[in-house]
């Protein structure tokens, strides 16, 4: 470590190696609630294989995973449960908002639907679509891998919560 605090050559190489390992072995925790859950299953299965990106094991436990894929509509009743699951994951962790409903509430601008999961947890990559096409999902996943490589994961500030009437 040099005198002004910036990391020296050895530290940055170790960082780069760690990031390479993390981005190529993302273990997802599928939080599929509605139609996007089916699309996520389609991306995870044979034709558009997500396991070639390292997601060979799909862990349904938050303790054993590092990528939380929120696929589907999150209602206001489900929001504290989602926050609970996110809190149980250990660092480093990333969140992917899969589809329109988890990014922004989708077409459901009503009293019962959470208008975007970034009201309760920080999100790293948003994938638009209703449901998103599998190529779009893979594009989003590769963008997330670029983010991890440049060490920007998980520090997105929580969006200012929408004014409640």
């Amino acid at each position, binding site marked *: 470590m040099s005198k002004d605090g910036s990391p020296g050559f050895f530290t940055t190489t170790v960082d780069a190696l760690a990031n390479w390992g993390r981005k190529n072995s993302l273990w997802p925790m599928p939080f599929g609630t509605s139609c996007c859950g089916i699309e996520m299953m389609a991306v995870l299965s044979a034709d558009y294989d997500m396991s070639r990106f390292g997601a060979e094991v799909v862990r349904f436990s938050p303790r054993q995973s590092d990528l939380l894929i929120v696929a589907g509509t999150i209602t206001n009743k489900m929001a504290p449960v989602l926050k609970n699951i996110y809190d149980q994951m250990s660092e480093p962790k990333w969140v992917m908002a899969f589809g329109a409903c988890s990014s922004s509430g989708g077409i459901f601008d009503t*009293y019962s639907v959470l*208008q975007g999961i970034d009201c309760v947890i920080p999100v790293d990559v948003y994938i638009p679509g209703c449901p998103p096409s599998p190529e779009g999902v893979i594009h989003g996943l590769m963008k997330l891998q670029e983010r991890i490589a440049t060490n920007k994961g998980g520090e997105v500030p929580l969006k200012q919560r929408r004014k*409640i009437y």
Partner: protein
Amino acid sequence: MDREKRLEKIKNKFSSAVSALEYDKVGCPILFCSKEKIIELLTFLKTDEALKFEFLADLTAYDDMGQPEESQGRFVVVYNLYSPHSHDRLRIKVRANDGEAVATATVLWKAANWAEREVWDMYGIPFEGHPDLRRIMMDQRFEGHPQRKDYYWRKYQLFLDAEPMPEELLKG
């Protein structure tokens, strides 16, 4: 016994309580009933040998605010009945105003338990004699009844901590 005779039989027995036989677009008969006689009518429909409407297909409600019939009762509770013996369907409607209670149908069908909880949650119609009348879809701390016409559809109430569990479930 065909459909006309069945409806005649119902109307003869309950001439004071039942009114206005209508048909909806697909031909299902709709009968309006007064609030006091509803359990008697449903019991008769379920147990009578010729009618035997033993299957409660659905129990729901709607808000009739702004329509001309609102003066008789703002909310309409709808019972959809089906008879597996004669394969016939019947719809019974009951009008109620804001705050008025309707007698519960759980004495006849256990399936009415959750359906009446949903009606209470969405419209605020209490059911007299219901064993466990509490909200089923919205959070227990939610204020208001969302499917009423005067509830702003965008007004959402967010609770960031999990709702407290009722004590009866914790004991068992």
